[in-house]
């Protein structure tokens, strides 16, 4: 077979799948412009008032702020811990590296609800409850696997002797890591950080068990608003989230070409 182009049926099916997957996104975006006070497709009229409503609503703004602080904090901590752990695991500095890796990755496999309940019980037992720190720790637990996974994948892709070369040339261990290993694994780490950020931003099942009234995050607020009756402001805030995600992914790809590590 010299012709590498897919046949017409394959192309058609692929397009249909892509459209099907994007329908929810399209629906939400369209609904956010509707003048009606309920969600409807196609939108009736065209207005930006729901966006205005979201951006002037202190509940939404507070939730967005909470979510951002939490996602940035959790990702930063996960990054430091995850990269350090991956490095040690990759270099087989510890006995039982395989088991430790599985342990760190386990939040990906265990259902989030279970993690949520478990953490709630644990924090109650140790006397930590309903605070930002609790939420931050929980988000570190659920985001660290993404960092570890991408860091391990990146490390296995580089020639370890480059770091030895740096050390022979007069760099101490940390300098060698900073000047040689880190730049080489950076694209993978950016990918991991994005996953971590997004995971923290969208998490409901773990957060809902642990967040106190003052720690309401954006997905929790959307979740509860939907329960109480949907108006297009929910669609508007979702649209804002979608736009922000697309922009972040676009620039991250431009800067690092991280898709190779996803």
């Amino acid at each position, binding site marked *: 077979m010299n012709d590498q182009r897919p046949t017409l049926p394959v192309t058609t099916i692929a397009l249909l799948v892509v459209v099907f997957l994007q329908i929810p996104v399209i629906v939400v975006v369209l609904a956010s412009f509707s003048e009606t006070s309920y969600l409807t497709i196609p939108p009736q009229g065209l207005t930006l008032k729901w966006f205005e409503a979201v951006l002037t609503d202190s509940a939404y703004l507070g939730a967005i702020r909470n979510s951002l602080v939490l996602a940035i904090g959790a990702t930063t901590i996960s990054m430091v811990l995850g990269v350090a752990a991956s490095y040690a695991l990759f270099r087989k500095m510890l006995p039982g590296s395989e088991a430790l890796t599985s342990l760190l990755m386990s939040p990906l496999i265990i259902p989030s609800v279970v993690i949520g309940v478990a953490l709630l019980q644990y924090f109650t037992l140790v006397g930590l409850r309903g605070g930002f720190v609790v939420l931050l720790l929980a988000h570190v637990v659920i985001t660290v696997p993404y960092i570890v996974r991408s860091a391990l994948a990146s490390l296995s892709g580089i020639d370890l002797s*480059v770091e*030895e070369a740096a*050390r022979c040339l*007069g760099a101490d261990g940390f300098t060698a890591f900073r000047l040689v290993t880190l730049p080489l694994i950076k694209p993978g780490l950016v990918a991991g950080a994005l996953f971590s950020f997004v995971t923290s931003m969208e998490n409901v099942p773990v957060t809902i068990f642990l967040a106190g009234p003052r720690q309401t995050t954006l997905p929790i607020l959307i979740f509860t608003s939907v329960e109480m009756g949907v108006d297009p402001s929910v669609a508007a805030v979702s649209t804002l989230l979608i736009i922000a995600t697309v922009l972040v992914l676009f620039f991250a790809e431009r800067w690092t070409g991280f898709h190779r590590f996803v």
Partner: protein
Amino acid sequence: MSNLTLDHVVKRYSSVTVVKDVSLAIDEGEFVSLLGPSGCGKTTILRMVAGLIDPSGGTIRIGDRDVTRLPPNKRNIGLVFQSYALFPHLTVHENVAFGLRRKGQSGAALDARVGEALAMVRLAGYGERYPRQLSGGQQQRVAMARAIAPRPNVLLFDEPLSNLDAKLRDEMQIELKRLQRELGITTLFVTHDQAEALSLSDRVCVMQDGVIQQFAEPETIYRRPATAFVASFIGKPNRLAGTIRGGRVALDEQLELRSESDLSGDGRPVEVFIRQEAISLAASGDESVNRIAGTVALRSFSGPQVKYVVRIGSDQELVVEAPSSGPAGDLAPGQPVMLEVHPQDVLVLSRETAP
């Protein structure tokens, strides 16, 4: 510039001892090769000298300084890796500058040193390229420039030429030798390629199973191997079983050879090594040489050389190498031949306990 001394160095990994009590003194400016089959401990020694592996025992000294417990960055060494290990995200210039920057150099002085190092490996003008834009041989030269730029006390090479093709390898050998001569840096060179070790080195250290078998000049290693292992590892020798009998070495009931090796101890079982290229198929008329009658069993032509398998004595075989253009280039299987071997080329060594 300094000498390099290893004193009773040992490396153990839980149950396995890979380097067993190795002592080695390398003079200032000397080029020494560690030669041996894979797993003989040569790379482990190199990495211990570099500080990348901690020895289990013994001392390593560079000049007067005990470096045994120092990290690599405190040893002032240059290491050239088999994989080159260039920094892929840095330009050639920055690769070479890396070691100089760690020593606090910058600006014009740094640029001058980098330029000098690149000129030495004949890569002037390649500074702005990235390693991936260079050929294998060029990358290897950048690796050398990077190692020599900070003026290390000791240069270490870990099989640096084994990733290059044969022709390029020959060129790089000459280049490397020239470079080392010009700089006069004490050099430890690890290789499993005997031709490379013999042609480059001032002295060669042959190793087996973590033990030094012989440490001597290339000519001595080749002509007077100290052990059966060295004799069988260097060159392409015929290896025969024999017994000492009346000041000669007997290969079987009829066949006795004269040798310049130690032939004391009547009845002692020995191993006899005769190099393929030391056996002559032409009659010289010289009375002092060994004459061995045999029959050509096999002929194999390889361009400039012809190889014969010659059956001798009752059931032994010798491989003989002859120039294909000479009179002995056209012997047919089944043809009787008279082989001549000089007594100095008959090496008699004690039989090793292990095969």
